[in-house]
Structures are given as C-alpha cells and as structure tokens.
C-alpha cells in the first residue's frame, strides 16, 4: 500500500500525459491533470510555510543559537501573511488583485522583499570580482581557452571593445572585438550549449521513463518515513 499506490499514481498520470499527445480526445484529461498539479503546487507553498513555522518555533522553544532572529522570521512571515490573506489596505473590493498598488501586501513587497532579494544577489558582483583576481588562472590549455573567451565577451559586450578595435579594416572586421564576441556566442558557444542541452534532454527523457515505469523510486524515500 505504502509503495504500490504512489507507484501506480505516477504510472497512470505519466502515461496519460504522454498518450494524450497522440490521442486528441485525451487532451482534456491532460489539461485536468495539469490543473490538479497547479492546485497541489499551492499546497506545496503551504507546506513550505508550515515547515518554516515549525523550524523557527522549535528554535525559539529550545533557545538554540541565534534564536532571537527566529522572532524576526516569524514576525515577517505573520505580518506578510495577514497583509496578503486579509488584503489589508487593498484599495478595491475582495476581487481586486492581492498586490494592487497601495495595498499593504504590495507595499511590503516594494519596500522590504524587493530590496532584500535584489541586494542579496547583487553581493555576487563582489564575489565574482574577487574570484577573478584570485582564481581565474591560465593554468593549462583548457583554462586559457576559457579565459580568452571570457575576456573577449567581457570586452565585446561593452562599447570599449569597439573603441579599442574599431580601427581594424572592414576586410578583417571579424577581428573587431564586438564582432568576435558575437561570433563566439553564435558559434562555439552555441555548439557547446547545444551539446549540453542534448545531453540534459536525453537525461530528462530517460529519467522520466524510469520514474513512470517505477524503476526510479528514490523520491518515495524509505519505508520508515
């Protein structure tokens, strides 16, 4: 029961979705199953929220290291949840979008979530620079190729590239850095990315088959769960 039912569900759903491509009347079933999937996805968000509550309440209760910051997480979570679920400050009626301009939900998004997330990722600019200085070495032939390609792209994607090599005559214009950068993107980069895409594609196809046929079962965990 614990293994058979989930394996049967995966098999039936996966098979129906594949067959529906070849059997047009089954396409409605395809859309319905996909809508089920979309609805379950929302419950996954709830699961994430519930798990967050559990972890941080436990941390508070056990007074674990940095437990004070769990209060921040929980307060942020509950305030945003209330703002969103009750549409606090929403300018329209209950049908108006949750993130209508002027609502508390959108205000917290604009002034708290937006700066937090964008700044978090912008830190990477500093770390990329540090890595360029410390780790980006022409240690061997392969690393040198990588470095040269990166250099041409970095130069070619700025107006400085043209300023530096704009004097090269038309009959050799592929050697102008912006043109060379474009050529690298359209040719060796395309080839390399395509090889990766085909490789990943084959991996996804075979893994999908393994899952549908029940050969791959690791997502079920162990029986003691």
């Amino acid at each position, binding site marked *: 029961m614990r293994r058979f*039912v989930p*394996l049967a*569900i*995966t098999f039936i*759903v*996966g*098979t129906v979705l594949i067959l529906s*491509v070849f059997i047009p009347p089954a396409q409605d079933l395809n859309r319905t199953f996909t809508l*089920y*999937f*979309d*609805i379950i*996805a*929302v*419950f996954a*968000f709830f699961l*994430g*929220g519930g*798990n*967050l509550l559990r972890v941080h309440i436990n941390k508070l209760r056990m007074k674990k290291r*940095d437990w004070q910051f769990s209060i921040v997480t929980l307060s*942020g*979570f509950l305030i*945003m*949840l209330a703002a969103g679920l009750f549409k606090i400050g929403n300018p329209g009626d*209950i*049908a108006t979008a*949750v993130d209508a301009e002027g609502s508390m939900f959108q205000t917290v998004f604009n002034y708290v*979530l937006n700066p*937090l*997330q*964008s700044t*978090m990722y*912008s*830190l990477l600019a500093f770390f*990329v620079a540090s890595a360029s200085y410390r780790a980006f070495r022409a240690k061997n032939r392969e690393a040198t*190729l990588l470095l040269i*390609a*990166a250099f041409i*792209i*970095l130069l070619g*994607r700025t107006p400085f590239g043209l300023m530096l090599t704009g004097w090269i005559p038309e*009959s050799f*214009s*592929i050697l102008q850095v912006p043109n060379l950068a474009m050529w690298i993107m*359209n040719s*060796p*980069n*395309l*080839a*390399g990315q*395509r*090889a*990766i895409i*085909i*490789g*990943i594609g084959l991996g996804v*196809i075979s893994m999908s088959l393994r*899952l549908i046929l029940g050969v791959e079962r690791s997502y079920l965990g162990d029986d003691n*769960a």
Partner: protein
Amino acid sequence: MKRSSYIVLGVVSAIFVLSWVMKSMSLSEVDDSIMQGFLLTVSAFLTLSIFSFLYKDNPFYKFAEHLFVGVSAAFWMCQGFWSTLVGNLIPRVSESLSGFFMVPYQPGSFNFHYWIPVILGLLLLMRLAPKGGWLSRWPLAFIVGTTAGLNFIKYLRSDFIDQVSSTFVPLLGDETNKWTGVGDFFSNLSLSADSQFVALLANWVIFVGVFSGLVYFFFSKEHKGVFGVGSRVGIWILMITFGASFGYTVMGRISLLVGRLTFLFRDWLGLIS
C-alpha cells in the same frame, strides 16, 4: 551584548531616524510624506544591512536575512492562495464561496472531481504531522508523474529532435552565401564579419562542436584514438562555452549591483536624477 554593540546599535538607530526625518522633509510635496520617508529609509536600511556582510557576518545581516526568509514564504503562500485556489479551484467547487470571493462561478456536472487535488494537497501537508507522513507520497507521486509525463514529450521534441535537426547546417554555402565553386571561394576569401568564409567557419564549428561535445559526455567508451581526439575538441568547445557564460555572468551580477546602488543614490540619497 557588549558595550560596543550598544554603541553601534545607537549610531545606526540615530542614522535611521535622521534619514527618516530628512527623507520625509525632502518629500514634503508628496501625500503621506512621513510614511514614504519611513518606507524608503527601511529599504535603504535593509539594503545596507545585506551589504554589511561584505565586511563580515553581523547581526544586521542576520536580521535582514531572517526577515527575507519569513516575508518571502508568506508572499508565495498568499500569491498561490489568491491566484490559484481562489481563482481556479473555488469557482469549480463552491457557488457560495465563489460569491464570497466575488469570482465567477463555473458550474459543471462533474466538477466534484476537483476535490481530488484538494485531498492530495491536504495529504501533502501530512508531511508536517508526527504520524502518517507516508501519505504525503501520494501527492508527491502525482507531482512526479505529471512532471515526468510533461517533460518526456517536450524535451524529446524541443531539446533533442529539434536540436539535432538544427545541427545539420550547410557546410558549403547557405541561403545567404551560395556556394559557387572553389575558385570563387578563394578569390573572395575575406575575414569580414559577414563574409562567406566566416559564415561557413561558424557552421563547421557548430557541426563539429556539437558532436565532439557529445563525444566528451559519452563515458561508456574510453577516450582514446579518434574518439579521444573528438573528446579533446569537445572539451575545448565546452571551455569556450563556459568562458562565454562566465563573461555573461559577470555582466549580470554587475547589473544587479548597479540596480541597488542606483536605488541608494537616487531614491534614498537623491544624489542623481
């Protein structure tokens, strides 16, 4: 807390209040200037709190990080609830709830089956319960089955068949550069960006590059002899690819930093227009 911590906290609080007052004054022509000043100051404070990690890990960074996690989780829950549960589920399962939420009811004789994803969704939440966690495998199986079924066809078509077919490019002239013979080819030989030679070279690199790249990824045969040469070319192509990706990654990360500094200089400090 150490004495120095109190001093830092005091200084930061003072700067926060000062920024709030000054920002509110500078926005005096705007409605609700005090609130706007407060919100912009909060944004700037959070931005600088994250940047403070560059010096070293500190309580301001931890505060911002923990706030981000909490707000983000609730954000997605609310968006999911209103957009999909209220927007797609309720109109199909309950007329009275549809009326309450003011969404158009979609009656249907067989709509009762839309309770299935609700049941599966609730089973997914069993993962949080001390017992019966195994029941969450059912919705998980549904998610896995749907993803596998959808991806199988789409990846097969777009990422395998179409990609392989796009790799068979003309190696001697194409639509824009018709092949008119060896003599013409050499007499017009040029390194101009739109010359026939450059276009053909690109096609050769694509054709050879894709196959040698795939050879490199093929681990069931030892990379020796002709196969080894193919694999070697493959890794060179991949290295150029990674170099290009690195260049673009640098570009992307710098843009994000420009975005944040623009906020600080323009919206908060008013230094630029």
